[in-house]
């Protein structure tokens, strides 16, 4: 039996491991959302955030590309109205909007046979269909992490791509090693998703995080 942490709590748990999250704010009202948007800078993305909410996109709980205070106010109202009693306590998360033509997925999972593992793959909506993923056992060395990147079949996504620079390998290695440290740090962590891990100007940015824990 496992439970998921909210996006905000997931990021809080992962914070000590140096993963590349955006500056973002957690608020309780539409008005606070507007203030948060002004603080982090437009455009922003607003998401409904709560412990029981794992797959926000599928439920329309992610509002992208909010360019004005009016947009943010309306998005805040809609998100809070969409919450159901099963969602428990909810808040609105406001973060700068980033866009990228490349999306990876990175994560960690406790394999029933091999114990903690780290995964890197091509992300986006076709991720599971393409299934270009590589796995290594945690703990991971930096050499292991470099070899993971090198082992992806879609090497064209790692190099220079559509006018964007090559993926910063050192930064991506740091993400993988951070995930390895995160899953080995706490026995009760069943899995960690950084999905998507966007590549913005070559740098990996985790715009979402989901930590799954084993219930004792």
């Amino acid at each position, binding site marked *: 039996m*496992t439970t*998921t942490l909210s996006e905000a709590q997931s990021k809080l748990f992962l914070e000590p491991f140096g993963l590349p999250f955006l500056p973002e704010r957690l608020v309780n009202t539409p008005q606070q959302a507007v203030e948060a948007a002004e603080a982090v800078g437009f455009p922003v993305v607003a998401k409904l955030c709560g412990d029981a909410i*794992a797959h926000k996109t599928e439920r329309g709980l992610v509002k992208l590309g909010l360019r004005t205070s009016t947009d943010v106010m309306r998005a805040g109202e809609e998100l809070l109205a969409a919450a159901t009693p099963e969602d428990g306590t909810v808040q609105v998360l406001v973060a700068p909007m980033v866009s990228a033509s490349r999306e990876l*997925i990175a*994560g*960690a*999972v*406790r*394999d*029933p*046979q*091999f*114990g903690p*593992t780290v*995964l890197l*793959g091509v992300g986006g909506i076709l*991720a*599971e269909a393409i*299934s270009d*993923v*590589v*796995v*290594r*056992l945690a703990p991971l060395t930096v*050499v*292991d992490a470099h*070899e*993971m990147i090198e*082992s992806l079949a879609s090497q064209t996504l790692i190099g220079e791509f559509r006018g964007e620079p090559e993926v910063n390998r050192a930064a991506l290695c740091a993400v993988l090693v951070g995930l390895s440290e995160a899953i080995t740090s706490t026995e009760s962590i*069943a*899995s*960690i*998703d950084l*999905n998507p891990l966007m590549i913005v100007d070559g740098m990996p940015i985790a715009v979402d995080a*989901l930590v*799954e824990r084993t219930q004792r």
Partner: protein
Amino acid sequence: MSNRSEQFSALFDPKGIIVAGASTHPGKFGFVVLHNIITCGYEGNIFATNREGSEVLGRPTLRSISEVPDGAADLMFVCTPAATNSELLKDAASKGVRAAFIASAGYGESDAEGQKRQDELVALAEEHDLLIVVTNGQGLVSTPSSLCAQIVAPYPPAGKIGIASQSGNFVSSFMNLSRQSGVGVSRAVSVGNAAQVGVLDALEFFADDPHTAVGLLYVEGIPDGREFAERIGAVARRMPVVVLKGGTTASGAQAAASHTGSLATDDKVFDGMCAQFGIVRASTLTEAFDCAATIVSQPLPRGPRTAVVTTVGGWGVVTADALSQTSLELLPLPEDLRDHLDTLLPPRWSRNNPIDMAGGETKDTVPEVLRAVVGHPGIDAVIMLGVGIQSNQGALERRGPFYPDHGLERIVAFHDRQDRRYVETATELSMEFGKPVLVATELAIADPDNAAVAAMRDAGRFCYPSADRAVVALDRLNRLHTWRDRRGLPAFDS
């Protein structure tokens, strides 16, 4: 030497063997195993027991193990019914037996009763300091002791490949490939349902075994993945390990809430474990043997820069295509090498890599070109194609109605000598410069008697039946080198 290691020594290098349950019926295990032990030249003590004391294969048998002199045998091959084996093991242990291969049916996988019997047998073995391999599988082979204690052929040539398998059939298949290629085997054992010792126990013995330079494993079930990874990883730092895994298609997907969990299938995890721990994972039986045979018969390349040398034509082109899909690099010919080759070859040669000699051969062309290429400091590895062509024609002439007249005898002998010389030169240069030089020709299968193929076999070097198989094997060798190099590990001492 640890206790387990001593027991493995008794299994593979026994000073004497007892065949318990020797049979007069030529179709029974208890007949065949005795036949094979004697036929393949085992020189230690051989004792056979038979309830009636009947002669088997013209040799006297003992009615009971109590008649074996104390300390005269340390390995027992058991073909008796399962029900009597407990007493047998105790008696054997008291005679100094340290290892037993149990071929009796009725254990482990048969049913719950069999599992119980097996557990009891394991407990008994532990108590009496015995190593037992319980299997309805085939037996074991150990060429340093000329030992063929198994119930099926073949007996492979001696060499440095150590085989441990969860399936007896794979042991036979690998050894048949060994016979075909001439690249030999040191030890081979099928551990069956791994009651007491498993493939990793055997592998750990191989790692310390001076007769073994590569471990070749077939595995299906892995009960404890983490322990498996740690143990196989520790061996792989000291000795190359090739693994073929059956049952790769099942999916993991345990942590349902996460994408990571659903993407990290069992096979991806196993694959990643192999890549991380420097284990050569093969996807087919032939690839597994090719890799092991390459590891024992070629030095590791020091880099990816590969030259393809061919006597003629399109072979070089498709080999270059195959190379482009791997970690290997088909380097543009260094200028000084091109200039050098210009002095050795007629003007129509390719003047690039692949080095197509365009049939421009005098008596010494091929050896001279090979020396120039293998010896060039910018080249890490060489694949050589197009050997055996002339002696293949010679074989047709030798069988024809005109042989040995019309000068045929002389020319056929010349071709055989030349083809033999070409591949011997390849081997000599490979050793002289410490670089892999792989020879590929389909004649390896089409005509094992071809002079080039026979010469490779005599040298204990693998002759690749196709260029693409040579490319795959060399790619794996290069990846192994890269893996070690990045981790600061020295070359294997063999």
